[in-house]
């Protein structure tokens, strides 16, 4: 059964900008799904329509079997949203923010307070529950929005760049939390600019560009399309001449840093054999860029054309 079923969704804003040009997208229940795209591609518009903050021009959205138009209340009760921008009352306390949100979903006061405490503890915010939320740090505010989105126990959780500007420690704790709730059955849709985040966490991915879905597949299949991979090698000793080997392209960045690009079908042993032949000793190596990032850059136009900023 589908957690999200979008058919031919179009959105044209009053200023004439076509943010979505007939998007169709299906997300299975239990999936951890990445929605990727450059700024202005239509991600936030798509999420806005799913969460009923943006009115679509045409098309159909079904959330957990509930049509957004015909059964709005049921559809909205099925989702939790973590928006890109902070959107809670900065003068309220975290406990109030979350318990009020629970109330809007018909959760009685006593249970709302219990759930608020549970999720504040889960996201390491309980010691701030009665402080004005404006005094929280940036990472805490983001976690507060995740706790708020979880309070109605949504079947589908949508996060719009939840880890933007968050330090790595908090980011990792967020990842752990999201993996945990996904393992418990919550479908997660994530938009992010950190492509390693999508690669590490998500099973399926859709890439949106100029209001169209340009790729929609599982991460493994997508990465399978990568035909050349580039590695950065830190050398033990400086070299002057670039090694030569059939099928491998070398580029000397500086005397002790070498880049090597080799086709996907060739093993790394080939690379090391070539290096050994030229008596090049390698201290360490790493991918030049995230693999998904390389594909992403190929699939979208990388901002070459003038991008309409609809988001």
């Amino acid at each position, binding site marked *: 059964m589908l957690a999200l079923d979008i058919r031919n969704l179009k959105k044209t804003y009053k200023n004439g900008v076509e943010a979505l040009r007939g998007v169709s997208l299906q997300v299975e229940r239990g999936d951890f799904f990445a929605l990727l795209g450059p700024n202005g591609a239509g991600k936030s518009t798509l999420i806005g329509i799913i969460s009923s903050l943006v009115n679509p021009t045409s098309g159909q959205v079904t959330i957990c079997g509930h049509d957004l138009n015909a059964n709005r209340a*049921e559809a*909205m009760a099925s*989702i939790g949203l973590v928006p890109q921008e902070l*959107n*809670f*009352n900065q003068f309220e306390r975290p406990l109030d923010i979350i318990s*009020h949100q629970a*109330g809007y979903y018909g959760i009685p006061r006593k249970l709302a307070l219990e759930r608020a405490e549970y999720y504040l503890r889960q996201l390491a915010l309980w010691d701030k529950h009665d402080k004005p939320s404006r005094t929280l740090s940036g990472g805490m505010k983001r976690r507060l929005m995740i706790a708020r989105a979880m309070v109605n126990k949504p079947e589908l959780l949508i996060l719009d760049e939840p880890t933007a500007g968050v330090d790595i420690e908090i980011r990792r704790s967020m990842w752990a939390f999201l993996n945990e709730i996904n393992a418990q059955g919550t479908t997660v849709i994530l938009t992010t600019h950190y492509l390693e985040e999508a690669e590490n966490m998500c099973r399926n991915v859709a890439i949106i560009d100029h209001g169209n879905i340009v790729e929609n597949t599982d991460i493994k299949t997508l990465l399978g399309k990568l035909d050349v991979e580039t590695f950065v090698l830190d050398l033990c000793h400086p070299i002057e001449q670039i090694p030569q080997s059939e099928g491998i392209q070398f580029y000397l960045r500086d005397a002790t840093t070498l880049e090597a690009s080799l086709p996907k079908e060739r093993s790394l042993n080939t690379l090391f054999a070539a290096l050994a032949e030229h008596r090049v000793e390698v201290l360490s190596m790493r991918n030049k860029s995230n693999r998904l990032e390389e594909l992403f850059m190929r699939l979208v136009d990388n901002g070459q054309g003038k991008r309409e900023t609809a988001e």
Partner: protein
Amino acid sequence: MNHAYVNWIGYRTLMRKELTRILRIWGQTIVPPAITMSLYFIIFGNLIGRRIGDMGGFDYMQFIVPGLVMMAVIQNSYGNMVSSFFGAKFGRHIEELLISPLPNWVILLGYLSGAVTRGLMVGVVVTIVALFFTEIQVHNWLVTLSVVILTAIVFGLAGMVNAIFAQKFDDIAIIPTFVLTPLTYLGGVFYSVSLLPSVWQTVSAVNPILYMVNAFRYGMLGVSDVPLLTSYLIIVGFIIFLGGICLWLLHKGFGLRS
């Protein structure tokens, strides 16, 4: 999903949230009207009123009490709605409600209940302040309470329309300053319209606040410049008209949804 239950819990939550807000910022919501009205009582009622003598068969201080209570109710029910709803819109936390399963009428009712509550709270405070200056009588409790509640509803709804259209904080100050205050001052708060020349009596007849103030004055003192039935019809008419506009604007998502 039990819609009625969800709506009821949602309404109670909104009501609690609004009440918490009113009480949290009591220095902005309750105290200022008490001070302003005390000044009105001292200056107009006590100092100037002594020289005016009777009005409508009552001493001047007694005559202006219903008008000042009503003025406080009008300003505060309007002010609560416009500041609370626009604040939620400006801070984007209105999205908490827009993405919830609650229908628009529950959202409207929740905010409206907050506006009416503050209007009545301030009305009670002003009445208590008035007790320090004069005796207060209630001619008809039913009329007094129904008119004050219905008037608070009218101005709560008007505040919602203002808040929905407002784009910046200036926009929520324009209507109270340039429309509400003049209409209230010219709505028979401080005088009986029978004192005005006939031309100005005719002009005053198109001011809806005149009917509300006079209906409330009838409830307290038993005197009114206008027929009570006309006042009720006008008040209820405004509630239907403004309520319809609010629901239509919320349905369209005007200023709230893209």
